[in-house]
């Protein structure tokens, strides 16, 4: 199918990543962030245009801050957009997120290598 996929000019174009069929998610957390967004949307917590607008706002702001925006930072923007949108929709608060992230960090540090990281239940 892709016998003639030679891209002789690739080296001339460092600014445009042109991988032919790389993994759609570079890391598992990206897939989880993507799936949470789709799931919340499907349940009606926000419309897709609302989501697209928020994501493009975050991307535009990151560019203004000097992000070269080559596609590799895309899911970082996605995650930030999701965090702000769920807070704005009242699904949870920014404080909830910070506290829970701290709890995961503590659990990580307390977990020996090679064992699954488990969050202790909050008293």
């Amino acid at each position, binding site marked *: *199918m892709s016998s*003639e*996929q030679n*891209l*002789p*000019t690739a080296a*001339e*174009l460092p*600014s*445009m*990543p*042109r*991988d032919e*069929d*790389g993994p*759609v*998610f570079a*890391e598992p*957390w990206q*897939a*989880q*962030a*993507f*799936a*949470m967004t*789709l*799931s*919340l949307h499907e*349940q009606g*917590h926000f*419309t*897709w245009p609302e*989501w*697209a*607008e928020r*994501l*493009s706002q975050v*991307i535009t702001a990151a560019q203004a801050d000097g992000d070269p*925006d*080559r*596609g*590799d930072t*895309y899911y970082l923007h996605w*995650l930030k957009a*999701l*965090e702000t949108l*769920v807070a704005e929709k009242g*699904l*949870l608060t920014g404080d*909830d*997120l910070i506290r*829970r*992230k701290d*709890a*995961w*960090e503590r659990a*990580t*540090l307390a977990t020996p*290598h090679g064992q699954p*990281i488990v969050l202790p239940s909050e008293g």
Partner: protein
Amino acid sequence: MTDHPDHSHLSDSELRVRALESLLVDKGLVDPAALDAIVDTYENKVGPRNGARVVARAWVDADFKQWLLRDGTAAIDSLGYTSTQGADIVVLENTAKVHNLTVCTLCSCYPWAVLGLPPAWYKSFPYRSRAVKDPRGVLLEFGQDIADDVEVRVWDSTAEVRYLVLPERPAGTADMTEDALAELVTRNSMIGTDRLGEA
């Protein structure tokens, strides 16, 4: 980006995703099994293969092709590939005189239901900005030298409308089955950065 060979900790992004997901699960707002199903679908089942089947059907079935060009959303839905984002899909036909190129200049709106998830370059700023300003230059970098007498049309996706390019059927494929034709269709040919050569 820096590689860290020592994976003894979770990255900041991993911690944030775990925090978000565990809170949403606790509140009953998302179901972990549903998340797994979404990831599996988009990573393994959709890919660009759904789109390739749409294209192959249009090549062998003139009525379907007319329907597809008239109402892409309904025609694609009839094959079971339904968009869950509520966006309409408009299908653009390449001909000997017109080459269509799709982009999302704002972020990366993309016809996921038929193409899976977008490649990294589609999400990159260089592609998003240059596809509109210099489409022939971008196409040349993808190895496609579009003749001067062929009109290049650039279509900017939105949250409401996604585009799928219907590439020209390659010469020498008259005897091929629909399944075999689908194998010829590349993802990039449906984005518009590729043209299909002879089979």
